[in-house]
């Protein structure tokens, strides 16, 4: 179905607000506010947990038909990262391996 301009603007504004507020409001928290130690530990671990959830299972869908392409590209990234600890090398290696496999 097509959208009238007014309907579209309501949708746009509603989605923009529903995305912006959850992102922005917590940044207003005082960063040095005393929190229970376990909450502080939890918040510091969130980035690492988020990384895990972003990598897997998403990496399986790099090639929608062949899950192993993402896995092999990811393995190349792990190997290069372990050896050189360099972001650019890691990205180039993973991209090249995945490109060769398709």
């Amino acid at each position, binding site marked *: *179905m*097509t*959208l009238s301009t007014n309907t579209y603007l*309501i*949708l*746009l504004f*509603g*989605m*923009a607000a*529903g*995305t*912006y507020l*959850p*992102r*922005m*409001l*917590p*940044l*207003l*928290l005082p*960063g*040095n506010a005393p929190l229970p130690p*376990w909450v*502080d*530990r*939890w*918040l*510091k*671990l*969130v*980035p*690492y*947990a*988020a*990384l*895990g*959830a*972003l*990598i*897997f*299972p998403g990496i399986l*869908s*790099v*090639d929608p038909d062949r899950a192993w392409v*993402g896995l092999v*590209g*990811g393995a190349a*990234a792990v190997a290069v*990262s*372990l050896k050189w*600890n360099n*972001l650019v090398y*890691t*990205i180039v*290696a*993973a*991209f090249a391996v*995945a*490109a060769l496999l*398709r």
Partner: protein
Amino acid sequence: MAKDVSQNFESSVGTPTWGHEFWRGVRAGLPISFGYFPSSIAFGVVALASGFSGWQPVMMSMFVFSGAGQFLGVNLWQSGASLGAVILANLIINLRYIVMSASLSRRIQLDSLQAAVIGFGVTDETFVLNSLAQRGALTSGYVLGVNTVAYLGWVIGTVVGTVFAGILPGRVISGMGIVLYAMFIALLVPSIARSWKIGAIAAISGALCWVFGKVFAFGWAMVLATTIAAALGAWLWDEGVDDPEH
């Protein structure tokens, strides 16, 4: 004389200018920008096929800037959901950002204007990069640089998708998705080398995300996996696993 030079060098390293930090963030965020292309181009194509027209998909990418939310929104709209249902679903899928921004607020102190601008650019990818890419103090210039270049990738990709819908070689574009995963891996591997506990938390989170993903939409699966795995780590290891600030 030599001492003076080294002191100048020290002070220029210790207090980089805002602009210098911004460009450092832009360079660090480039992989996110490229990594977004498959999704943002696909979003332009999908939105046009779902009844949106002209510049509507691009405006949505400019004002919403959320991959999961935008795909969910156009899919629901096309399937005949009401305006309220689409807006509510988008809000729910984006509630995961509360956890991320709360985590980021422990790393960097922002005034309300900075929070208003930087908050717009918090995505799964910029959050992870901003949280983990550097060990020292995090600056507002750096974060804004990362967020800005990621945003441009998202918007430009949507423009490309809407303008060239139908004539793009799909396989070439989807291959760019590996860039994001390689960046995530490059962030994770050195962290695991410092502490195996970080690896355990990431592995548990990935496994949980995979299991939850069979039942829930991506946003839910990710927020559940992230919340539970991080809480498990906080509960198991009260000494903390590794402090990114030191």
